[in-house]
C-alpha cells in the first residue's frame, strides 16, 4: 500500500469514526453516547471550577471575611510584610490622612501602622519586641493578631493635632511578649529608655503571627520614641470596610502607594508555598484519573456492545488496525465533545461559585474565570481519551473477529 493510500485509508477511518459517533449521539445510541459525554463533561467542569478557585487564590482576589480589609502601603518593587517594613518608604501626615480615610463612606475603621523593633524592660527583664503603633477605634479589634482592647481610642497624645496632649503610656503585649517579659497588666514598662509606659493588657487569646513578641502602643507615642513624630510618619494604613468600592478612593490617597486586600496579603504566603499550584495539579490528577476510569467503563461497555459490528467489519475485510482506529476516533470524539462542554459548563460553574460566595461568605469573587480554561479542559479531556485508549484497544482486539 502506497503512502498516499495509507493516508487516504486513515483519513477515511477517521471520517467514518466521526460520522459514526455523531450519528450514534444523535440517532442510534443517543442515551449511551450522551451519558459518556456527560460523564466526561462533569469531570472537566469540576476540574475547571477547582482550577479557577486555585488560580483565584494565586491571583489574590480572595477575601475571606465579611469585613473587606485593605492595606495601603508605599509603592515598592520588593517584597513587603504587614509586620516589618523597616528601610522602606513611609507615609507622612498620617493622623490627618487617617481622618480623611475615616471620612470616606463605608469605611468602618482606619489606622496608620508604624512598626519598630524596640527594647522593653519590665521588672528587670529586658527583651527586644516589635512595637506596633496604631490609632485605636471602636471597630479596630486587632492588629497583627493582637487585640487592641487595652488601648484608648483615637490616640489621645495627638488629640489636638500635635504631640503634646495626654500621654497614655499604654502597652498591650502579645502572649509571647508577655511570656518573655513575665509581664502582667499594670506592670510598669520602659521602652527604649522611656519609663512612662504601663502594661494595659496582655493578649491571651490568639497567637500572633509567627509567635513574634509584639507590643501594641499608641501611634504618636511610638513616633515620639522613634523620631517619626517630626513628619507624623507611619509605614502603612489598615482600613476596614464592608464595601470593595472604596478601593479606588484609597488608591488616590497617596500618589505612590498600593492598595492591597487582606486576601492579597494572606494568600501571598499561600502562593509562595505553592498551594494554588498544588490545588490545580491535584484537581488535574484526580479529574484525569476519575475521567479515565469513567471513559474506560462506559466506552468499554460500548465496545462490548458493539462486538457484532466489529465482527462484521472483520468479515468484510476491515483490518483490526482500522477497527482500532475507529474505536480510538470514537473515544477521542466523545471525550473531546465532553471536554468542550465540560469546560464551558466549568466557566458557568465558576460564575455560580462566585455568585454563591459573594452572597454568603465573601465580598469578592473567589475564583478566576478565563477563556483559556476552554482549551485547557479540552486538552485534559483528550488526555483522558488518550489514557483510555490502550485498554480499549486491547478490549477491541479481544472482541473482534469471528463470525458476526
Amino acid at each position, binding site marked *: 500500500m502506497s503512502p498516499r*493510500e495509507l493516508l487516504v485509508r486513515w483519513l477515511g477511518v477517521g471520517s467514518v469514526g466521526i460520522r459514526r459517533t455523531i450519528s450514534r449521539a444523535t440517532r442510534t445510541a443517543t442515551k449511551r453516547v450522551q451519558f459518556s459525554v456527560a460523564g466526561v463533561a462533569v469531570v472537566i467542569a469540576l476540574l475547571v471550577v477547582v482550577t479557577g478557585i486555585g488560580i483565584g487564590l494565586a491571583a489574590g482576589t480572595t477575601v475571606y471575611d465579611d469585613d473587606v480589609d485593605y492595606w495601603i502601603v508605599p509603592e515598592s518593587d520588593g517584597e513587603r510584610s504587614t509586620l516589618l517594613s523597616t528601610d522602606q518608604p513611609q507615609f507622612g501626615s498620617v493622623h490627618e490622612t487617617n481622618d480623611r480615610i475615616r471620612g470616606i463612606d463605608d469605611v468602618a475603621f482606619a489606622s496608620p501602622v508604624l512598626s519598630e523593633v524596640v527594647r522593653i524592660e519590665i521588672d528587670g527583664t529586658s527583651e527586644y519586641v516589635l512595637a506596633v503603633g496604631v490609632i485605636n477605634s471602636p471597630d479596630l479589634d486587632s492588629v497583627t493578631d493582637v487585640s487592641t482592647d487595652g488601648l484608648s481610642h483615637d490616640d489621645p497624645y495627638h488629640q489636638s493635632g500635635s504631640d503634646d496632649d495626654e500621654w497614655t503610656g499604654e502597652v498591650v503585649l502579645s502572649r509571647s511578649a508577655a511570656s518573655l517579659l513575665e509581664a502582667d497588666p499594670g506592670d510598669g514598662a520602659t521602652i527604649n529608655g522611656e519609663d512612662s509606659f504601663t502594661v494595659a493588657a496582655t493578649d491571651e487569646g490568639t497567637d500572633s503571627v509567627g509567635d513574634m513578641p509584639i507590643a501594641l502602643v499608641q501611634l504618636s507615642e511610638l513616633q515620639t520614641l522613634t523620631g517619626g513624630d517630626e513628619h507624623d510618619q507611619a509605614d502603612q494604613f489598615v482600613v476596614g470596610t464592608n464595601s470593595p468600592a472604596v478601593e479606588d478612593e484609597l488608591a488616590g490617597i497617596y500618589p505612590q502607594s498600593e492598595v492591597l486586600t487582606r486576601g492579597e496579603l494572606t494568600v501571598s504566603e499561600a502562593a509562595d508555598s505553592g498551594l494554588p499550584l498544588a490545588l490545580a495539579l491535584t484537581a488535574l490528577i484526580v479529574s484525569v484519573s476519575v475521567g479515565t476510569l469513567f471513559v474506560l467503563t462506559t466506552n468499554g461497555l460500548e465496545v462490548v456492545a458493539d462486538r457484532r459490528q466489529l465482527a462484521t467489519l472483520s468479515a*468484510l475485510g476491515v483490518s483490526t488496525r482500522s477497527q482500532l482506529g475507529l474505536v480510538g476516533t470514537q473515544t477521542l470524539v466523545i471525550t473531546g465533545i465532553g471536554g468542550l462542554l465540560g469546560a464551558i459548563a466549568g466557566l458557568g460553574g465558576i460564575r455560580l461559585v462566585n455568585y454563591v460566595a459573594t452572597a454568603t461568605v465573601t465580598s469578592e469573587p473567589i475564583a478566576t474565570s478565563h477563556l483559556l480554561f476552554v482549551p485547557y479542559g479540552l486538552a485534559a479531556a483528550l488526555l483522558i481519551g488518550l489514557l483510555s485508549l490502550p485498554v480499549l484497544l486491547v478490549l477491541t482486539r479481544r472482541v473482534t473477529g469471528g463470525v458476526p
Partner: protein
Amino acid sequence: MTPPSSAAPAPSDDGAATDAREHATDPPPVVRATDVTKIYTRGSDPGRIGRLLGRPDAPKVRALESASVAIEPGEIVGLAGPSGSGKSTLLHLLAGLELPTEGTVTFQETDLESLSTRQRTRLRLEHVGIVFQHFHLLESLSARANVALPLVELGVRKRDRRERAERLLERVGLGDRTGHRPGELSGGEQQRVAIARALVTDPTLVIADEPTGELDTETGRRVLDEFERIADDRAVVLASHDRPTLEIADRIVRLTDGTIRGDDET
C-alpha cells in the same frame, strides 16, 4: 492482493497424472474444501486448573464431517439442507472466517491455514464478498457509506468511493436511497445494500447465507435476480433451505448432519 502461493498437495492416487493435466488446462477452482471437518466446543474450556480440579472437558459438536467441495469461477453453487446441517459452517470455512479443525480449504490454490489472521482478513477484503442473512449493515452509516466501507480499507479516494458506491446502489435499484440509513430502509432494500457492499471490491467469490431468509417472496425474487446478474464472472455460493433460492444455482450441494449427501447439477 494475490493470495500467497502454497505447495500443491502431493497426488495420492493413480489418477493423479490425469488430474494434473486437467488442472493445467482448466482454471483452478476459486475455492476448494478438501475433507474438512469442523468441531466446535460448546461452552468454555476448563483449562489446566479446571482439569486439575476435575472439571470435565466442554462438550464438542461436530458441525461438519469430511466435506469436500470445489467452487469454479462463474458458477452459482447452492448449499441445501435443513437447519443445523452445516451449511453456514461450510460457508464460513469457504470465506475464511473460520479455519477447519481437520482438512484444508484452499483459495485460488492457497491453503488458508497457511495465512495469518491479518492475511485472511486482507484476502476477504480483496477477493470475497459476504452477504449475511441479517444484513449486518452499520446502523449509524448511510447506505452509501455502508457500501463504500470496504473501499476505505483499500485506500480508495473519497470521490472514487462515493462514485462506486452510488453506481452499485443504482445497479441494485437504490439510486434514490443512497443517503438513507439502514433503519430507514425495508428488509429487501437493506439486503440489496448488503449485496452492493459485497460487490464493491469486485470480488472473485460471493458468499451469501440465507440471503432471502428475512424477505417476502417478491422482494426475495428481486434479490435473487441480483445474484444471477452478478454471477457472470465470479463464483457465488448461496446457503439456503428455500427452494426458489436454490433454483438459481447451477449446482446444489446437499448437506445433512454435517455431511455432504449429494452434489448435483440442476
